[in-house]
């Protein structure tokens, strides 16, 4: 514990991180379970601990559109949303990434209607991987706070200029409390300078932004966008090291590898469930099992190299995600499998999907996954739903 220790929820940590990043304008629409973020930010503006304008936008689509207006003038924008709101602004996500506006947005991962559920799963953001945003998934409130600050540094890099989504699990992280270390403002200021860019309107150099292209030119802009987000991998890793050097916390870049070196089975997963997996790993290792975790932090850009590196060591991978692409498999699983294609290795992979609409993924569930992976030579089905509360008989 230090003077800077705070006992806060994930939402509160996000708000604190946003305040430290010194955004110029906040435009956000409340939606459970993100509401505490916007409420705290409003408090900070009222008590003058944050010098920013709060636009009381009338919808999420407007929240992102306003953020684009802010960015278009060269100012720093912040917004936050979840599920239905994220989808409501979906058109604007493509717009912002195409326009190369380095907006930072927190997304509280929450299940998408129908059925309605305010509880967490990862279907909202995983369904938008193609929107051109950098996407990171946080394991705890400390990482959430730290990632908001890192997000601006990475997004605003002139070679990146890509908007950045910081995902935290709804309720599990947004509303649970943990002690965090609050970085000092001067150190953050030193790490994150003022946003400077040529990608803006100004009186010194009047520009026309967000123009249209004929078929002769469109692909070139898309290619440049793709290359920039790929380039961000270097920037992500460099920023992680720099942040760790200053603030004492490293997150190891695109992925984090926990006890995979000699593992017989590795779970590949993202978000808060990583914490549960670590606990199970420690318990099972005491019992003699050799199991490990590959925590995917960034889904975009995708950590192809890290996935391939693991595959050289471990030939039994289970991808665990709170998501399903109906009619096929989980999106994270598709991404992981694709990264493994072309490698001349014998790898066994399986997709474990669960945690929908806030269903808990317990230590027992994780243990069963590891046992399933270790005891079965081959798998009958590619995709398995876990945490079933009744029998899933033939329909």
């Amino acid at each position, binding site marked *: 514990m230090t003077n800077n220790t705070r006992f806060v929820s994930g939402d509160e940590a996000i708000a604190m991180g946003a305040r430290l990043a010194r955004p110029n304008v906040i435009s956000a629409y409340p939606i459970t379970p993100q509401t505490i973020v916007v409420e705290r930010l409003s408090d900070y503006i009222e008590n003058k601990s944050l010098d920013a304008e709060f636009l009381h936008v009338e919808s999420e689509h407007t929240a992102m559109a306003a953020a684009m207006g802010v960015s278009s003038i060269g100012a720093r924008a912040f917004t936050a949303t979840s599920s239905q709101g994220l989808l409501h602004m979906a058109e604007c996500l493509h717009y912002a990434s195409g326009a*190369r506006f380095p907006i930072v947005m927190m997304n509280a991962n929450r299940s998408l209607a129908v059925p309605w559920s305010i509880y967490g799963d990862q279907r909202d953001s995983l369904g938008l991987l193609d929107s051109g945003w950098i996407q990171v998934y946080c394991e705890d409130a400390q990482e959430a706070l730290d990632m908001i600050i890192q997000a601006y540094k990475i997004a605003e890099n002139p070679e990146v200029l890509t908007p950045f989504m910081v995902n935290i699990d709804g309720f599990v992280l947004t509303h649970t409390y943990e002690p965090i270390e609050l970085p000092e403002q001067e150190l953050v200021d030193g790490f994150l300078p003022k946003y400077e860019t*040529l990608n803006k309107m100004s009186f010194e150099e009047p*520009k*026309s932004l967000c123009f249209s292209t004929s078929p002769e030119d469109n692909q070139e*802009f898309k290619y440049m966008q793709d290359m920039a987000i790929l380039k961000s991998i270097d920037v992500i890793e460099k920023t992680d090291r720099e942040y760790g050097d200053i603030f004492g916390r490293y997150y190891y870049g695109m992925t984090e590898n926990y006890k995979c070196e000699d593992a017989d089975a590795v779970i590949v997963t993202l978000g808060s469930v990583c914490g549960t997996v670590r606990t199970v790993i420690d318990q099972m290792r005491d019992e003699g099992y050799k199991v490990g975790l590959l925590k995917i932090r960034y889904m975009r850009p995708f950590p192809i190299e890290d996935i391939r590196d693991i595959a050289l060591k471990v030939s039994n991978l289970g991808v665990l995600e709170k998501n399903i692409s109906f009619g096929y498999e989980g999106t994270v699983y598709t991404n992981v499998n694709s990264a493994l294609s072309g490698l001349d290795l014998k790898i066994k992979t399986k997709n474990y999907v669960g945690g929908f609409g806030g269903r808990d993924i317990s230590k027992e569930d994780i243990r069963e996954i590891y046992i399933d992976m270790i005891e079965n030579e081959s798998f009958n089905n590619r995709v398995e739903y876990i945490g079933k509360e009744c029998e899933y008989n033939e329909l």
Partner: protein
Amino acid sequence: MRPKVRKYIRPKKISEYPNTPAYESGHLVSINAGWRTFIPIVDSKKCIGCLQCYLLCPDGVIGRTEEDKVNIDYDYCKGCGICAQVCKFNAIEMKKEDK
């Protein structure tokens, strides 16, 4: 006062493109003269300099001269005929253009 058309060379390398979709305002690479069927001709003897044609040209091609009369940028005139129509002094005539 009025932007001029510039010579535009298509990029041969992708690095010659602007690296974001933001481009210099007032950058023109093509003219609109080819749209015309009729061309407005100003009779400056009849023109009293009321500036209604200048005011109401949708394309802004009618400019003011030093003598408070008007001239026309034929690179960008589309021949719509509004100038001739609004002129109360019959100082502009729309003539069929020989191409």
